[in-house]
């Protein structure tokens, strides 16, 4: 019984032991699994973000790149500026173990001194930097060669170059295939692809590409198996088509360069534009620069003088004087003016004019660039009207062309004028204009008195060719078509008989006006009589002008210095090449002999408004007296025109005229603001000699 009981208890003990042990193991497992569960919950819930980031970091990488900057085309779709992909080599010093060997290998690949690279890498490694440029903006061929040189066979790296710690970065490089062509117009962008000048600067917002973020998922070998792309909120870059014609631009630049060099001048600018549409066909500056190497260019070469520089236009501005007078019906192209006096005195300032020796038509007066006739005409107009017409022709305001830093010009309001300001302005002094403003004034006359807003952008479009924006033409009638036609006839006389015979064209009629103005010297605070700005602005053919060409040469030093001798030949050279290119039918015969009589060209005489100011005691003579006198002169003049209309006018020498018929000299003394009395040079009379 006892034995049986003992056996039974022993059995129970064993079973219990087994059961207890089993339960312990189960408990252990439960605890283990529970621990794992808790850990999992902790990882999945609390550390989710961090772990996700870690996981993505391991298999994902982000590549940032920029969409290629928009392309700039000329009007015939030729590329003026284009961006291409390039590669920049950089190092991540944290991934490099042996800096010295790396520096040697990289230097050998880049063909540079290893010391420089070693220095950079060591410095960066010490500072804990993870990005050091080794070479920037390399082309594809060079990159391939570097990849071959920097090949480490033992390294498991999918991307090229297969070398530890060395990587490529996609960048873009702006190229200007035509180099110096239209450099100031197109401008340039810096290494960060931000426009710094010209269209590149003014249209930066449109040209600039969006930043692309590319997410790449990689396997353990670094092979990309998934890609996704995002871009910033910026609009995709647009292409810009300019109104510039590369062929016309090239010819203009060639002619200008030749003109500047032959005149031994400081600089020059030329503009070719279509007066009907306001499209700029060419805008040239000399000296110029290569936008591909803009760092090497002198700062003054980067300026687009045609829109950024101002100058006193001189006689070119007589267009406004005569244009306004024709519009106001004060004069007629075939009307006559008595210029026999030879000088005119306004507010104590004597304006000499050696051409003013006889009675002549207004056409002739403009042809010989008579200051006397222009001043008298302006005095007839009066301050306000003259000022308003100057504004109407577009002076004193930016033209609104799509180029950066356009100068507005300088033309003071009449209430700040001096006594002789009207006279000075009538011949293009005491005001500053840009070459584009002056060209646009002539374009207005060429376009039957309609001023069209100039523009240099023809079209803006997306990369796929879809048009984003077209240019709209803004037109304003400034003078009547009849008045414009009359002025065109007068301007033709300048080319046929006057100061611009060198602007006569082979096969085409042309018209225009020369200008030779003294330059204002800020150093001596007066006009410098040894420095000139010589210009010629004209158009062709006369009856239906297709192009307006403005040529401005700054400080010609050799030989002839006036616009007729320096700028008119450049105009001729440009026009004779441009007109056939535009398929304009010739309207006159081809004659080679037209320019043989070079010596007979009357030299233009410019008298700056700087002669000794005679401060009269009768300074209180009001402008009313002046206006009365002018009115009576106007009446006389119109009566004379009417009477001479009947008979065919013949030019009368001064000595043949009776004394009474000679024009009176109008002397007006108007008080000038104190402290601003200009030093009037007595050299005006001396300068007033024909320059041949």
């Amino acid at each position, binding site marked *: 019984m006892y034995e049986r009981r003992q056996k039974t208890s022993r059995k129970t003990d064993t079973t219990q032991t087994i059961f207890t042990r089993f339960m312990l193991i189960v408990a252990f497992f439960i605890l283990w699994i529970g621990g794992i569960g808790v850990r999992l919950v902790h990882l999945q819930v609390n550390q989710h973000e961090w772990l996700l980031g870690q996981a993505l970091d391991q298999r994902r990488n982000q590549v940032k790149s920029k969409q290629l900057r928009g392309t700039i085309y000329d009007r015939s779709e030729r590329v003026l500026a284009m961006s*291409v992909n390039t590669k920049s080599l950089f190092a991540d010093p944290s991934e490099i173990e042996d800096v010295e060997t790396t520096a040697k290998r990289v230097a050998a690949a880049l063909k540079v001194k290893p010391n420089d690279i070693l220095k950079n890498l060591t410095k960066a490694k010490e500072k804990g930097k993870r990005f050091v440029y080794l070479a920037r903006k390399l082309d*594809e061929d060079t990159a391939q060669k570097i990849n071959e040189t920097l090949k480490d066979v033992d390294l498991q790296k999918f991307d090229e170059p297969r070398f530890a710690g060395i990587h490529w970065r996609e960048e873009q490089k702006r*190229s200007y295939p*035509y*180099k110096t*062509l239209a450099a100031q117009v197109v401008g340039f962008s810096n290494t960060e692809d931000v426009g710094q000048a010209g269209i590149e600067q003014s249209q930066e917002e449109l040209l600039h590409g969006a930043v692309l973020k590319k997410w790449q998922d990689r396997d353990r070998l670094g092979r990309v198996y998934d890609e996704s792309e995002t871009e910033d909120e910026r609009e995709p870059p647009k292409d810009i088509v300019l109104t510039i014609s*590369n062929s016309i631009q090239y010819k203009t630049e060639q002619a200008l360069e030749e003109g500047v060099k032959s005149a031994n001048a400081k600089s020059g600018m030329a503009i070719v534009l279509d007066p009907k549409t306001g499209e700029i066909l060419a805008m040239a500056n000399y000296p110029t620069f290569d936008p591909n190497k803009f760092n090497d260019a002198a700062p003054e070469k980067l300026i687009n003088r045609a829109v950024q520089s101002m100058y006193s236009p001189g006689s070119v501005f007589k267009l406004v004087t005569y244009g306004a007078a024709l519009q106001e019906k004060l004069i007629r192209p075939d009307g006559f003016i008595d210029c026999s006096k030879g000088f005119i005195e306004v507010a104590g300032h004597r304006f000499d004019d050696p051409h003013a020796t006889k009675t002549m038509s207004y056409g002739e007066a403009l042809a010989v660039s008579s200051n006397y006739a222009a001043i008298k005409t302006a005095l007839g107009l009066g301050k306000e009207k003259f000022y308003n017409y100057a504004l109407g022709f577009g002076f004193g305001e930016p033209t609104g062309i799509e180029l950066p830093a356009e100068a507005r010009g300088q033309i003071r309001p009449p209430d700040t004028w001096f006594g002789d300001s009207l006279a000075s302005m009538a011949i293009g002094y005491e005001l500053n204009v840009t070459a584009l403003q002056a060209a646009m004034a002539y374009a207005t006359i060429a376009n039957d008195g309609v001023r069209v807003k100039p523009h240099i952008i023809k079209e803006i479009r997306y990369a796929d060719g879809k048009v984003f924006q077209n240019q709209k033409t803004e037109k304003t009638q400034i003078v009547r078509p009849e008045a414009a036609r009359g002025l065109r006839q007068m301007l033709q006389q300048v080319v046929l008989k006057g100061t611009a015979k060198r602007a006569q064209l082979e096969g085409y009629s042309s018209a225009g006006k020369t200008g030779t103005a003294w330059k204002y010297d800020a150093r001596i605070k007066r006009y410098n009589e040894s420095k000139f700005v010589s210009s010629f602005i004209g158009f062709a053919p006369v009856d239906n002008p297709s192009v307006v060409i403005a040529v401005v040469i700054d400080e010609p030093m050799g030989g002839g210095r006036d616009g007729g001798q320096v700028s008119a030949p450049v105009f001729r050279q440009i026009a*004779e090449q441009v007109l056939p290119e535009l398929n304009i039918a*010739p309207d006159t015969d*081809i004659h080679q002999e037209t320019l043989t009589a070079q010596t007979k060209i009357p030299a233009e005489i410019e008298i700056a408004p700087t002669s000794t100011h005679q401060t009269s005691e009768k300074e209180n003579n009001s402008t009313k007296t002046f206006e009365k006198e002018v009115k009576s002169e106007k009446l006389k003049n119109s009566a004379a025109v009417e009477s001479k209309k009947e008979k065919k006018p013949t030019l009368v020498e001064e000595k043949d005229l009776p004394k009474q018929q000679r024009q009176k000299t109008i002397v007006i003394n108007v008080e000038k603001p104190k402290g601003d009395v200009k030093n009037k040079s007595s050299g005006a009379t001396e300068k007033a000699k024909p320059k041949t």
Partner: protein
Amino acid sequence: MSRKRISPNNQTRNSKQSNRRSPKRGSLPVRYRLLALFCGLFLLVGFFFAARQHFASMDFSMKNSQLRKMSDELESDKRRLLLAKEIALSPAEIKKAAQKIGLKAMTAANNIQIARPTESINSEKTRAVGKVETAKPKPVAAPNKPQETAAGEKLTAKNVAQIKAPDVLVKLEKKIESAIK
């Protein structure tokens, strides 16, 4: 609490009974076994197929990525070639090439002769003669007279034959061909 004791005889009998019964109870009909086998196989094939698809998709993704890269590179090459073409065709380069082969700049008179429309000349003539003539195309320039190139240079029969495609263009053509291939 009394524990029911099972005699060894009983135990043997029971186990024997159960052994006798088990083939009947535990064994499934063949069709069920086949179904189970089929399901197992289906699952296995499914997993295998899914794995294959996964790796295939990875492979395609990689290929896709490579092709995309290649397409980008070709696009870049195209732009570079276009740029090279523009450089080669720039007026300054053409002028240099023309000067190299001895071409000279045209005169204004040559230019105008080319520009003068034949119609207007003919119409002037017909007006003068007083009869209607069909406008005959006037030769742009006499055969022995030089013609104009894009850069405004003279072209004569002699030097036209001498003109060869510039090396740059030949290289470009080759590059384009290889890129297409």
